């Protein structure tokens, strides 16, 4: 018998008696403004959330990261020096100073933002860059982790990460320091998403059939 059959047979023949699956109840309770809660939770792990910069994102980036020469932008709001599709391989973003990307989801309970290959193009731009700037529409913030896992990306993406602060480690003396292997800073800009151009109306007869 091969290993798979051996293991499955052993488990089926000798496992514990069946137990029912308990349903996960709705733990949601109103706890205040989601953007405020998100901001406070993100700060616990040394990330920061800021309102949209009055002078515009480009000016803010220049002022916040004055030494940055390589800016990878995965969003239409910012023109960087490189876009994800221009990297020859997934180790190449190691020389990126700042990555700018938009998240489709924020989690107030934990200060997390969701990123997948859909937003990143090249997954490593969110980890290899020195600094990560994430645009988050406050309307995309949900209250807790239970609601977060209802987001369709967790069923569709090959890679999905809930990022909740800059890379850190407490492995030396229990003191959290930044960075470890990932980004040095994580800033969430609470900027509403640009309005999408509405899809052109079509006659019902034009709809493609599934």
């Amino acid at each position, binding site marked *: 018998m091969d290993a798979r059959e051996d293991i499955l047979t052993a488990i089926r023949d000798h496992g514990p008696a069946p137990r029912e699956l308990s349903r996960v109840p709705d733990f949601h309770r109103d706890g205040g403004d989601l953007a405020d809660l998100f901001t406070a939770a993100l700060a616990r792990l040394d990330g920061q959330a800021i309102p949209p910069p009055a002078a515009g994102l480009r000016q803010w980036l220049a002022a916040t990261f004055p030494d940055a020469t390589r800016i990878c932008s995965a969003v239409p709001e910012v023109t960087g020096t490189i876009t994800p599709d221009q990297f020859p391989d997934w180790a190449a973003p190691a020389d990126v100073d700042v990555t700018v990307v938009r998240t489709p989801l924020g989690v107030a309970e934990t200060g997390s933002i969701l990123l997948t290959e859909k937003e990143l193009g090249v997954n490593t731009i969110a980890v290899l860059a020195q600094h990560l700037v994430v645009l988050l529409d406050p309307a995309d913030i949900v209250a807790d982790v239970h609601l977060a896992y209802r987001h369709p990306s967790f069923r569709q993406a090959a890679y999905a990460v809930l990022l909740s*602060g800059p890379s850190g480690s407490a492995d030396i003396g229990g003191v959290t320091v930044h960075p470890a292997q990932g980004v040095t800073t994580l800033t969430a800009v609470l900027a509403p998403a640009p309005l999408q151009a509405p899809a052109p109306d079509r006659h019902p007869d034009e709809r493609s059939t599934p």
Partner: protein
Amino acid sequence: MKPVDQVRNSLGFLEDPTHEHAFDTLIWGLRERRDAAAREVPEWEDLRTLASRIKEHTLSHLADYLEQFEQRATANGARVHWARDAHEHNQIVYDILAAHGAKTLVKSKSMLTEECEMRPFMERRGITVTETDLGERIQQLDHQPPSHIVGPAFQKTTKDIAEEFHRVYGSDPDRADAVYLAHVMREHTRPLILAADAGMTGANFAVAETGAVVTVTNEGNADLSGNVPTLRICSVGIEKVIPGLAELAVFVRLLTRSATGERITQYTSHFAGPRVGAEMHVVLVDNGRSQRLADERFWPSLKCIRCAACMNTCPVYRRSGGLSYGATYMGPIGLITMPSADVRRYRELPFSSTINGSCSNVCPVQIDIHEQIYAWREVMDDTGGFSATKKAAMKLAGALLSHPGAFRAAAEAGGTALRVLPHFAVYNRLNAWGRHRDVPEAPKETFHQWYARNRGKDGHDGRS
């Protein structure tokens, strides 16, 4: 192999009071932060009960969920392998690497690969394995296993690490500064990640509904190990599978709060399939788990989600250092899992506990750890694992504790003896407790004597 003598192994650690104090303070701090995090969540106890039930359900339908996971992961483009034991796991990983001509492997922390002793297996076959978790890398460079399942190098002080990095990397030995040392590690490890032929992660959870392997890290090293190379291998213990995303939310909320007192780690990463042009392999590993699942007394230990809360609260663990257990899993969870792997080698471990129940109280999946420790002691007794000295001591204690008069007489005589006997007589070979500590000063009277003097025969306070 000789049985592990945890008491003897801890002596070296205890000889240096700096380490003992620093370790105890750090680890107890984690326990305190866990308590604060738990108090912040009104439904905390409901979550623990729910998590326990979800795990029990999953383990009682494990074959079905493993098949579902396999089917979904395969549909996502991953290749799923099955390993009966550590050797099969290591061989599968090696064969994948060899088929790709891979010579360098970067990996994030995985207790399963520690359990399988994968690193030496690969190194004997010419594969260079680099641990990318800071604590795990510190231990690797010092040729030591992890001493804690969350913070592998917690038993080392910052000064120890500064000296180690000076020895290995030539960094400043006098800069015992965590920021500087983390920077030294990043400078030396990042190039290895960028140039690696293959990357590897363990798994905190495997989601049957989506076929995703989920890792929980602070550093982003799993995301780098799993994304930079085009070849990704994930090693997953079969007990890590859970039904779906709704259940995953419960465990994500419990895990980090129980481990460090934070609400979540910086990176909660879901690897469901390979990117275009890349490969993802998942190795599902049994290595004794199906055997434990068949044991009606000890199968609940498979609910463990590796948060280390039981270790952080354990007075024995905190004062003996993790390496003293001579085991992949240390502390209370090690006491009830390691004997399953090798009952002879780990026959003494169930005695490294005060059985105060604190481990069970903090366990996020409600494993009855202290009761299982007691049950393992019974197993050791049944199988002749008790030494003659331990048996005689237990017999005497049993006789004393079941006869109140004899117990009172012994307590009074013991107190008197401690006050009048010379040092050499108190600190004799039979006094294991006093080998490395001062025996506390005996009170002038026992509680029973005090009570009789103050309350009188009728139990009322004699004072008006």
